[in-house]
């Protein structure tokens, strides 16, 4: 147990940690840390500190920083420590700087040189430490300084180094994509690395690359699929298994990439169907990681070109999720939101589950459900959904989410509003409760919408919209504390359309506007909107030939504003005063009514100035040269400058200067050394093969080129010797194709009929004891879910669909459109049942270990943590903290139903399990503890007590096994 030697620090440090541990409040903790900072400040500058002591100081600095205090006075010492020769100190130094410094810190420049040196070290641990630092500290400016060395390390003998080098390149790519673009071929090469860890790491940069540019990576589809297949078939070393799942993290990454590559690409997607079907079948839904893979699979299926079988499988998985615990419900709702884009009917099956989630006390789940509702909003259910959203928005305090949900409400209302009246009401509610949070653009949008109407050429409807807006605003305006943005909208609308329908008199509205300006006298923007509105109202009155009588409060407002500190307000006030004095015709020209919709033509070429320009040129002025031409001239005149420019663009130089050479013929300064080993590879431009059957052989035949992935090699890498070679798989796939072609017609009919059967089955199921309230909600959300009218509608749907199938029989002409309602016409038959015989035979066998784990996950284990035995003084407290499950097991005295060493499986700990009677626990029922831990914990406890760090009664659970 070398790890137990960890308490190698001085008493002083241990005391610090202990006192922090015992601090009862944040302020006490802060006081202790501030004291520590003072001590360190004094100590760290003392002369001749032994290195070991210094190392501890650095770790203490890390501790101070971790607790949220500023330790910047010590950064330079951490930097110095990275220069040390001993790896022990160097590692500490690197750890500290990666924790202290952000990539834009000034001190980084001092570390770059050390990093360069360490990357060249022949000790791979030093290289690893340096690469860790590279990933954290190197910024855009310093990338060229280390790039060549990092690239070189891709060929290092140690896989740990290769892996970190890849991650470093990934980081560089994120920082500045241009710096590593010429290295993309290297990523492809490392994808074929013989170490699965390196291959797995390579998936990170490839994922980013594919995200940016799908097209140029289409040729990798086959490789990814073959890797995924191998992983799923457990061909990777056992050490990559996680809870009996074969390399699930790699599977997830691959599925993410495949989703991108298959999106909107029918041919690529078809190649994936088999392996996706395999994964659906193999994934273990009893454990969390199995579900994680399953979820990723659903995401993938919903992204790629749709396949009915896979969609069914995904729908099944989702319905399982929705019936499980909260985490899975959350994932299920999310997955539903993804799948709904392809098959909108699927939500109907789960409507009650969705409504349950919507009413769940868990906020996270609720929000996720709102996201789903947002995605499935139609004009038929927009009212219910938006009203629900607004109610929720009013009830929460989280401003970030409030903003989001408010803008969603606005968006939905604009898109699906059933009536003008409803729209205005909804917007009013949103603005009233979240006005200051919504983007000002939303407000401008609303104003424009009221001005222009909904785009129909129906003036009557437009004026109705306006008068209903005016009416509602006059009602709201008296309410206290309206958000500024909302008031701006109100003022603008009242000014523009307040008197338009003649319902309200000008003096009534001007009075209201004055009230607003008075009530919000601190808000200059609102006042400006108000006075401009006043101006418009008066102008319309004058233009209409009516006598304007200015209310006394308006008069005083105008006077007040004309003496305002804000010049903007002053100007508006004076303009208003001047306008009132004009006659009707002048006013009509200055302030035409409803002018907001008029297009203003802008003379961009400023042609009205031509005359003036000509005059001055005649008088001898220099003619104007456009900016573009000016820079162009500069370029040609001072060509040498360019070189300088380029050199300075790369910033600092980190290499030593070149040795002077006798003659340097036109050598441009090389700050950014092109890596010589890596011949810049031209863009991979493989024309994609049209037929699957031909794609595989073409790859192997052209495999001689450096760049191309050699799949045969990959397949053999981790596989058993008898793994099938590429040629057999080709023939298999081609034969499969022909079968498809022949069997196509029948399958269409059978699959639709099956879908019909399952859907009607699913629809019938959830009708057991549902409160009428929920049913009503469901009806309004999903449209007609009640027992009687649901089936006919859905089945008629199906009928329509199948008929469309028959009419659209010629499949070639069909456009690739994922959102299209009718399912793809040519589904490869029985994808899910296609797997090799070995797989199908092993699938139904349930692994007994997995079952055990499932049991453990449900918390039915009653084993008591062994530390109880050590700290026998406070067992009850410990037990109470140990989750309710254990407690219930204890009180019930349930005999452990799990075969003896169930614990060890989960924790991965080995060794003979030691039996110990649980203190205060189920009397007599033997509970098993993890193997060597009893002794360990005794030692630990003794050691800690020796140092005086006795656990206090406040937190006895410090000793508690984290894994339980």
């Amino acid at each position, binding site marked *: 147990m070398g*790890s137990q030697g960890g308490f190698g620090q001085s008493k002083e440090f241990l005391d610090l940690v202990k006192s922090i541990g015992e601090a009862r409040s944040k302020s006490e903790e802060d006081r202790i840390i501030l004291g520590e900072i003072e001590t360190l400040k004094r100590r760290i500058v003392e002369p001749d500190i032994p290195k070991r002591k210094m190392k501890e100081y650095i770790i203490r600095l890390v501790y101070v920083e971790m607790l949220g205090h500023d330790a910047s006075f010590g950064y330079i010492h951490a930097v110095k420590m990275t220069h040390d020769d001993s*790896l022990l100190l160097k590692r500490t130094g690197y750890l500290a700087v990666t924790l202290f410094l952000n990539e834009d810190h000034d001190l980084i420049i001092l570390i770059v040189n050390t990093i360069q040196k360490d990357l060249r070290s022949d000790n791979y641990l030093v290289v690893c430490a340096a690469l860790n630092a590279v990933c954290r500290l190197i910024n855009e400016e310093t990338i060229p300084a280390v790039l060549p060395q990092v690239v070189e390390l891709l060929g290092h003998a140690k896989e740990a180094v290769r892996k970190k080098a890849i991650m470093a390149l990934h980081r560089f790519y994120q920082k500045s994509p241009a710096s590593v673009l010429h290295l993309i071929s290297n990523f492809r090469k490392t994808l074929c690395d013989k170490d699965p860890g390196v291959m797995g790491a390579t998936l990170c940069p490839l994922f980013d690359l594919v995200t940016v540019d799908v097209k140029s990576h289409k040729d990798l589809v086959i490789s990814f699929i073959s890797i995924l297949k191998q992983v799923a078939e457990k061909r990777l070393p056992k050490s990559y298994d996680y809870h009996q799942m074969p390399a699930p*993290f790699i599977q997830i990454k691959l599925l993410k990439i495949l989703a991108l590559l298959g999106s909107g690409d029918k041919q690529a997607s078809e190649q994936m169907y088999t392996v996706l079907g395999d994964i659906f079948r193999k994934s273990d839904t009893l454990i969390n990681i199995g579900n994680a893979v399953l979820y990723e699979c659903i995401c993938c299926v919903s992204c790629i070109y749709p396949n009915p079988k896979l969609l069914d499988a995904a729908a099944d998985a989702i319905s399982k999720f929705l019936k499980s615990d909260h985490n899975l419900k959350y994932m299920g709702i999310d997955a539903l939101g993804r799948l709904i884009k392809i098959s909108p009917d699927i939500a109907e099956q789960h409507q009650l589950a969705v409504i349950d989630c919507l009413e769940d006390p868990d906020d996270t789940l609720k929000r996720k459900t709102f996201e789903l509702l947002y995605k499935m909003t139609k004009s038929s259910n927009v009212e219910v959904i938006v009203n629900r959203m607004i109610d929720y928005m009013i009830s929460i305090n989280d401003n970030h989410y409030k903003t989001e949900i408010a803008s969603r409400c606005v968006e939905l209302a604009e898109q699906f509003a059933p009536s003008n009246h409803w729209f205005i009401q909804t917007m009013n509610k949103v603005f009233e409760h979240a006005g200051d949070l919504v983007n000002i653009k939303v407000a401008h949008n609303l104003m424009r919408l009221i001005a222009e109407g909904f785009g129909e050429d129906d003036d009557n409807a437009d004026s109705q919209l306006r008068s209903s807006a005016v009416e509602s605003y006059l009602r709201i305006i008296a309410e206290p504390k309206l958000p500024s943005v909302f008031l701006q909208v109100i003022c603008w609308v009242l000014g523009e359309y307040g008197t338009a329908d003649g319902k309200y008199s000008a003096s009534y509205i001007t009075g209201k506007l004055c009230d607003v300006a008075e009530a919000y006298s601190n808000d200059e923007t609102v006042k400006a909107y108000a006075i401009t509105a006043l101006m418009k109202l008066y102008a319309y009155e004058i233009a209409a030939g009516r006598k304007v009588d200015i209310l006394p409060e308006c008069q005083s407002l105008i006077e007040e504003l004309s003496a305002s500190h804000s010049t903007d307000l002053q100007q508006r006030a004076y303009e208003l005063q001047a306008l009132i004095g004009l006659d009707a015709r002048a006013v009509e020209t200055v302030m035409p009514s409803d002018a907001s919709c008029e297009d203003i033509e802008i003379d961009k070429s400023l042609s009205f100035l031509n005359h003036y320009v000509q005059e001055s040129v005649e008088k001898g002025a220099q003619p104007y040269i456009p900016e573009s031409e000016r820079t162009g001239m500069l370029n040609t005149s001072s060509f040498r400058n360019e070189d300088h420019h380029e050199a300075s663009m790369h910033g600092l130089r980190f290499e030593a200067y070149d040795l002077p050479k006798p003659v340097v013929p036109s050598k441009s300064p090389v700050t950014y050394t092109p890596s010589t080993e890596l011949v810049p590879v031209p863009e991979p431009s493989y024309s994609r093969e049209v037929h699957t059957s031909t794609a595989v052989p073409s790859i192997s035949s052209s495999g001689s080129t450096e760049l191309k992935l050699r799949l045969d090699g990959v397949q053999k890498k981790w596989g058993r010797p008898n793994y099938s070679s590429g040629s057999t798989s080709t023939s298999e796939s081609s034969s499969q194709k022909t079968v498809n072609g022949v069997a196509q017609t029948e399958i269409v009919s059978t699959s639709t009929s099956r879908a019909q059967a399952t859907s009607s089955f699913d629809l019938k199921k959830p009708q057991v004891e549902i409160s009428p309230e929920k049913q009503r909600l469901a009806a309004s959300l999903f449209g007609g879910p009640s027992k009687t009218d649901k089936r006919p509608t859905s089945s008629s749907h199906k009928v329509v669909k199948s008929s469309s199938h028959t009419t659209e029989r010629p499949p070639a002409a069909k456009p690739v459109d994922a959102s299209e309602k009718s399912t793809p016409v040519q589904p490869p038959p029985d994808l899910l049942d296609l797997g090799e015989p070995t797989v199908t035979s092993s699938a139904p066998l349930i692994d007994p270990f997995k079952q055990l784990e499932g049991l453990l996950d449900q918390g039915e284990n009653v084993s008591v943590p062994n530390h109880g035995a050590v700290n026998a003084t406070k067992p009850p407290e410990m037990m109470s903290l140990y989750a309710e499950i254990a407690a219930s097991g204890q009180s019930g005295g349930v005999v452990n139903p799990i075969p003896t060493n169930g614990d060890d499986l989960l924790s991965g700990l080995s060794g003979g399990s030691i039996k110990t009677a649980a203190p205060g626990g189920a009397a007599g029922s033997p509970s098993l503890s993890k193997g*060597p831990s009893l002794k360990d914990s005794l030692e630990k406890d003794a050691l800690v007590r020796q140092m005086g760090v006795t656990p206090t009664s406040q937190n006895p659970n410090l000793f508690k096994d984290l894994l339980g």
Partner: protein
Amino acid sequence: MIHFVLLISRQGKVRLTKWYSPYTQKERTKVIRELSGLVLSRGPKLCNFVEWRGFKVAYKRYASLYFCMCTDHEDNELEILEIIHHFVEILDRYFGSVCELDLIFNFHKAYYILDELLIAGELQESSKKTVARLIAAQDSLVEAAKEERSSISTIIAQATK
């Protein structure tokens, strides 16, 4: 991408923080305060995810310690939970039934382990064995350095005698 990793005790005390995206010290304090308020107050039967400022935080409680990881909106939450568990299992193997006290006193070791697991906010190694091997290699070097030092000091001691 994972933006940061937080280990908070049930009392809201910080046990470990690792930031993969740039945050100032002030922001960090604010993040920790906000998140500990959010996470610690959640009941046991709710889901292990929290949406927070447009990000997602997955957390899991082990004994009295909460492990939190903050990720982008489009990441797979279940996977993040398993990364947390993966980390805990590695810690467990390294410390031998890890408990909170191990992490309190050996936070720097926990950092070294985390550095082998995650790099720049991405999972770099999913094999427990590989991580354990690398950490062991580093530790053995440390041990070697210690021995060397003690042997030198004995030589010096003998010489001065």
